[in-house]
């Protein structure tokens, strides 16, 4: 069997290269922190507000034609891309995005009705205006058998997008606090610090990659980030459990060796689980279509980074966070429960 041939009782000295890993992570984190405000995030319409229309290609329409149409309608900051669509016999599609017009601009257009609500609805109508123009430019020959169709269209007003962004940030913060509290409760504060540093590391680097590659950052990305937090935590907990166990077993062994030993003992599990999860995720990335691409990309990246961080950040930091080797504090859950 495959795994038998792998160096099961591995003797990899992870801890000796930790300074190198710290340096690497520090550089990557610094790069992300600089990049994110500089390059910004490519907020999808969930967070930026605006309109999005995806259509299958009308016959004879080139991307330039659609662009010209968008300019003619004076769409605000239009952005038109080609995409490959979803599904096995996927057709080529156009994705048209634009910002919604400002409220005051609309208010001057809309005859006498200057109250705010009318303006909001005008903004929301921007997608309809574009679709009406499209249907005029590329009339359907037959109503039953349309030669092109609207796959999806979204319009999100500014109030909703602000609220969603806030909800997303709150969710990230809350889940980090939950994780910190859980590890504190189950282990000790020294573990907790390492684990949360690793999570922050994963979140910042993921957001950094989204900024670097300018991938759409929307509500599903936040969902992906939360899943990454869960996954990375899962990985870290498995290693920590082992560290605690080995600490009890080898009371005199230097901490560094105990951590190395634990990492090696859990290494094949770490690789196997990451491997199966990645296989599943790659299958979504390749086959799941346009809508899930950003989401599955974030998860793939997160699994890789999360596996790395549980070894080189979460575990390695245990050497620097003042871990107590007092046996009282190294009990596992079963022991705590059976005593009380």
């Amino acid at each position, binding site marked *: *069997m495959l795994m038998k041939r792998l160096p099961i009782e591995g003797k990899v000295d992870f801890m000796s290269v930790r300074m190198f890993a710290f340096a690497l992570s520090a550089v990557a984190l610094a790069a992300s922190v600089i990049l994110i405000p500089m390059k910004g995030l490519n907020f999808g319409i969930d967070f930026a507000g605006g309109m999005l229309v995806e259509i299958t290609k009308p016959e004879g329409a080139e991307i330039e034609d659609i662009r010209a149409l968008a300019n003619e309608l004076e769409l605000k900051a239009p952005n038109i891309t080609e995409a490959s669509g979803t599904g096995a016999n996927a057709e080529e599609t156009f994705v048209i995005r634009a910002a919604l017009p400002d409220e005051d601009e609309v208010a001057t257009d809309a005859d006498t009705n200057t109250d705010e609500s009318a303006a909001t609805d005008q903004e929301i109508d921007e997608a309809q205006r574009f679709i009406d123009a499209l249907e005029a430019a590329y009339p359907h020959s037959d109503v039953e058998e349309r030669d092109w169709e609207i796959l*999806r269209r979204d319009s999100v007003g500014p109030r909703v997008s602000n609220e969603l962004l806030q909800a997303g940030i709150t969710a990230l913060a809350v889940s980090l606090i939950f994780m910190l509290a859980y590890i504190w409760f189950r282990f000790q504060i020294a573990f907790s610090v390492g684990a949360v540093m690793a999570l922050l590391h994963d979140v910042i680097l993921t957001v950094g990659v989204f900024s670097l590659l300018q991938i759409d950052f929307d509500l599903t990305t936040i969902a992906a980030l939360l899943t990454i937090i869960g996954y990375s935590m899962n990985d870290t907990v498995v290693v920590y459990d082992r560290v605690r166990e080995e600490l009890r077993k080898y009371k005199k062994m230097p901490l560094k060796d105990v951590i190395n030993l634990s990492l090696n003992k859990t290494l094949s599990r770490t690789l196997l689980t990451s491997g199966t999860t990645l296989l599943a995720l790659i299958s979504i990335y390749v086959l799941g279509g346009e809508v899930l691409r950003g989401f599955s990309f974030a998860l793939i990246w997160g699994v890789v980074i999360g596996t790395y961080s549980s070894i080189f950040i979460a575990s390695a930091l245990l050497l620097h966070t003042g871990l107590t080797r007092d046996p009282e504090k190294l009990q596992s859950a079963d022991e705590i429960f059976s005593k009380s």
Partner: protein
Amino acid sequence: MLQFPPWKVALILFVSVFGALFALPNVLNENQRESIPSFLPSSPANLGLDLRGGVSLLLSVDAEQSVTKQLNDLLREARAKLQTTRGDNRISYTAIRVEDDAVRFRLRDNSMSDRAIALMREMNQPIGGPLGAPSIEVSQAGNGEIEISFTPQRVEEIMAEATRQTVSKLGPRLDPDGLGEILVQPSGENDIIVEAPGESDPERLIRVIEQPGVLTFNLVVEDQNALNEALRTGQPRVGNIIRQSVTGETLLLESDPIIEGDMVRSSSQGFHPENNQPIVNFTFNTTGARLFGEATSQNRGRRFAILLDDAVQSAPRINSAILQGSGFIEGSFTVESARELATVIQAGALPAQVNVESVRVVGPTLGQDSIEAGALASIIGLILVAIFMLFAYGLFGIFAVGSLIVNILLIFGALSGLGATLTLPGIAGIILTIGMAVDANVLVFERIREESRNGRKPISAIESGYQQALSTILDANITTLLAASVLYTLGSGPVKGFAVTLAIGIFTSVFTAFVLTRWFSVIWLRATRPTKLPM
């Protein structure tokens, strides 16, 4: 270890069969589903709008507007109360108006202020019964004016009521026959979510939603001089209003309507008996019929205007008293717009203006494509993981894959059984679970291997492997469950679907890894009594 109690076996079989039964309708087509006996579950998992296709709208209710409306009612009530005072007790007032969220008026004689305040306090209607918080505050402002305002509790109540009423009026407007599956539900403080599966034209929905639907019948003041005067000064006399008709005529109307829209019992689209144009028929309720009968008999020869959302639809002359309690509205309607209008009138006016905050439409093709893509990705993912596990663990890999398949059945069973909604990210959650579900198995298998290398016999290696992996598996899954629950509260349809499948997947994978795989191992141990582990 080898004693696997019968109740556990029964539990495993029970859960698996139950899961399979609930999961079954998902793979059947409509006809096959109908042939399922009625005592068995026959509904598949609900598909989210992103998979079925449809329109989803987020609306906000302008609840402040409804507070203003209530203030105007309060003003009318206050004026009526002041006018009932007689003789020595007569409170004489001036400049009554709504300003800065309060009804205000000035007293001609300031010595009456205590009496005026006491009188106004009679309008207090304690919230939630006689002992509740007061609904209004009455005081004398610095400039000597009497000021009546709503308490914060009352304002909150009005705003909540506005949203509730809007939800209850939008339902019948959007789905007049009650057949469709259009969902209208409140969200947050003053928001409403509308979901219309299968719909592809949001404009139609938005038109029906946004129409305030305020219908009134007002008498026309046929005094050309007064109209000219009002047009010149821009200010009609007290008790009159100026309105445009749809045909372009300018009319002076009495501001107090003779009939209001809530006195209409039913309304439907029809055709004009003479010119065959589309019209909107309506029938009054008893009160409406009586009032309309009185008004028409007292005002024979005058015209009355049918006002809809401040535009005069028509202004027919009253030739004789109309006592049968029904009538019609004519205007420049199409069949479609007349039908929409009839629906709006029937459902009644909205208590406050509704604004559209976001529109999301998924076409039917994209939804179907997404389902197919998701199914394909799941199957390929499952096959890849299965091959991987077989290579890694041999026979035990087969056990793990067997558990994984039951796991997927259980996830679908739970989704259908709980009536949860499957969304596209939810499918991704299932695929992710496929990848992560083997984790619990892997943790156990690695422990077994380790114990086996330390010289333990297969039986005791397996036993101790399961024992030692338990706390790790629990810890690892509880953290993921925490993340999933935070995700769930984050809300928004598709993402919520992901959180639900992720959470369900955590429970089912711990169950399958810890109970099912273990059972497989025990059966195998009993049957073969091996001396060496094949892994």
